[in-house]
């Protein structure tokens, strides 16, 4: 019955609205990330998605429709009846992938059989410069991969197997399965999930370029000092974001787009302050500007729309 991450071992019961509410309260109380799936009719399910205990949204999924609901409507959809309800705790990046899936519309469905078809499928997306999320299901694997301009992004790839979660597409291709169901989705550009994903990519790319350039100028040890200082700043905020060498690893699931924007604004400000201290404001501004202009058009637009721009990060 579960639509997402079937091998992850969700708990399943037939339950009423009271049971649904108690599950919801559990997520909120324990501040966990996860999903509750209610099979309202054989072809329709209602989903409640949580990010660290905060309700991200409620959704109704039909055979060809996806609709965002209010919490009241979601609870009411069960009415007085008893329905199969399953809940699944997820990691933050798995939760993010589900969020994007729930806010995207399927645009292409096909099956892949064997290595040749895998190659053809990947080559086709590369040629088309496809950007969007793809759900891949097989007997052994169930999960998502995000393609950006035809290239699969490893940080946005997550699959459940009976042995646990894994994060690479090669693992799916090399599994003993013989048939993979692929559903490509097209995100609504205004959806919070897609905006968050795009901002994460854009800010992440900018941050990586910035850190790499900073390392060029001051060396590895001072870069390490900077990442330590920024990590100290992140720590009390409990964001699951790490700076390792010249890479920003963001595995945090922010329940709202604005929270993602705020987090990156704070992180870039912390980086800017550290860089300012060592390199001075002119050179830091130059580094911010130079690395910013190396981003793609869509990435620039995503950052500029939130005023995440070089001038915003130095005093």
């Amino acid at each position, binding site marked *: 019955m579960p639509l997402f991450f079937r091998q992850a071992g969700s708990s399943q019961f037939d339950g009423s609205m009271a049971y649904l509410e108690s599950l919801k309260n559990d997520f909120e109380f324990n501040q966990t990330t996860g999903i509750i799936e209610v099979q309202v009719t054989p072809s329709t399910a209602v989903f409640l998605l949580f990010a660290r205990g905060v309700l991200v949204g409620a959704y109704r999924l039909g055979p060809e429709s996806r609709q965002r609901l209010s919490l009241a409507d979601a609870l009411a959809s069960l009415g007085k009846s008893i329905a199969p309800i399953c809940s699944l705790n997820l990691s933050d990046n798995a939760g993010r992938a589900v969020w994007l899936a729930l806010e995207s519309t399927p645009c292409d469905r096909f099956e892949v059989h064997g290595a040749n078809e895998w190659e053809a499928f990947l080559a086709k997306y590369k040629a088309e410069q496809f950007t969007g999320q793809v759900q891949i299901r097989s007997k052994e694997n169930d999960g998502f991969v995000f393609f950006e301009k035809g290239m699969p992004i490893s940080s946005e790839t997550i699959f459940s197997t009976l042995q646990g979660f894994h994060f690479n597409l090669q693992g799916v291709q090399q599994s003993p399965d013989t048939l993979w169901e692929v559903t490509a989705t097209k995100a609504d550009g205004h959806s919070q999930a897609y905006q968050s994903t795009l901002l994460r990519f854009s800010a992440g790319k900018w941050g990586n370029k910035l850190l790499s350039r900073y390392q060029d100028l001051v060396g590895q040890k001072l870069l390490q000092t900077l990442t330590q200082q920024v990590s100290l700043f992140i720590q009390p905020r409990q964001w699951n974001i790490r700076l390792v060498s010249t890479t920003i690893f963001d595995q945090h699931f922010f329940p709202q787009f604005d929270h993602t924007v705020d987090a990156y604004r704070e992180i870039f400000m912390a980086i800017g302050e550290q860089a300012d201290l060592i390199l001075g404001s*002119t050179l830091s501004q130059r580094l911010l500007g130079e690395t910013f202009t190396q981003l793609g058009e869509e990435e620039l637009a995503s950052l500029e729309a939130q005023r995440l721009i070089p001038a915003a990060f130095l005093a």
Partner: protein
Amino acid sequence: METSNPSPAEKRRISQILSYVVMAIAFIWLIVTTWVYKVGPLTGQHADYLNSQLYGALVLGAALATAILSTILAMQFKWNEPPFLVWLMFAIGWWAWVGGEASSMALNYIWWFYDYPDITIIDIFYTVGYFFFILALFFQFRLIYSREKKIGLLYYFIIVALALLATLGVTQLALKAGLGAGHSWISIYQALFYPVGDLAIGLAALWLSLLFGRGTWGRPWWGLIAFALADAINIFLWIGGNTLLQNSFANGDKIIETIDLISTTVYTASYLFVAIAFLMNYNLIKYGPAIPRKRSATGASPTTPR
């Protein structure tokens, strides 16, 4: 008995205290050096020689501190890290100048009662030092301005060739103006290479200082600006400024003496300043900056997870 290792914050604090101690020592060193130059405290049969050597030893000490600390800083980088070349070339430049200061003392010992030859090993050391400083600046600018398309060393050699050509031009002008009377062409050329080199590295260092602004990483370059100033005064007096001042002012000798003392003080201060800047950068690498965060972009409480 139990001993505990100091925390990073404690280590940072200790390093800061040590830096202040070093600064105090440097300041006292500068005062003593200036005093020795001005007063000449040693008396007796060879007082002039001994005072000159004592002054030379004090300047050599400052130069040695700079060279040692620049080397320690350069050693903080792996050989394949881009800044390594910048600081290595800078360190070699300082060692060349240590060679210049040391050979100056040695030549003083050998030729105290005679005139120096036109070109000595001192000039070779200083000139090599300039070439390495220009190379360090070249690598630093290349790191800042040409990351994607790295410009080759050919440009460095063009810069050096231009500096040598500019010296040639200045030498001809100086000779036409009647400056440097009694000196050979090569010694005038060599002497004039210093202000040209000073101007080149001084301007480049000034540019870097403006780029780095308040940033601590750029401070060692500031010393080159001060050296340019000290050397410019020195060379001005040497190529005829002495006579010019004596002829132009009634108290010309007093003015010359004052200017010369300023130049000497700035010269020693430059070494000490660069040494301290290297020490600060070393502390920065080793223990990190001590300044806490000042502001928050969104006003969000750091203890409120999202």
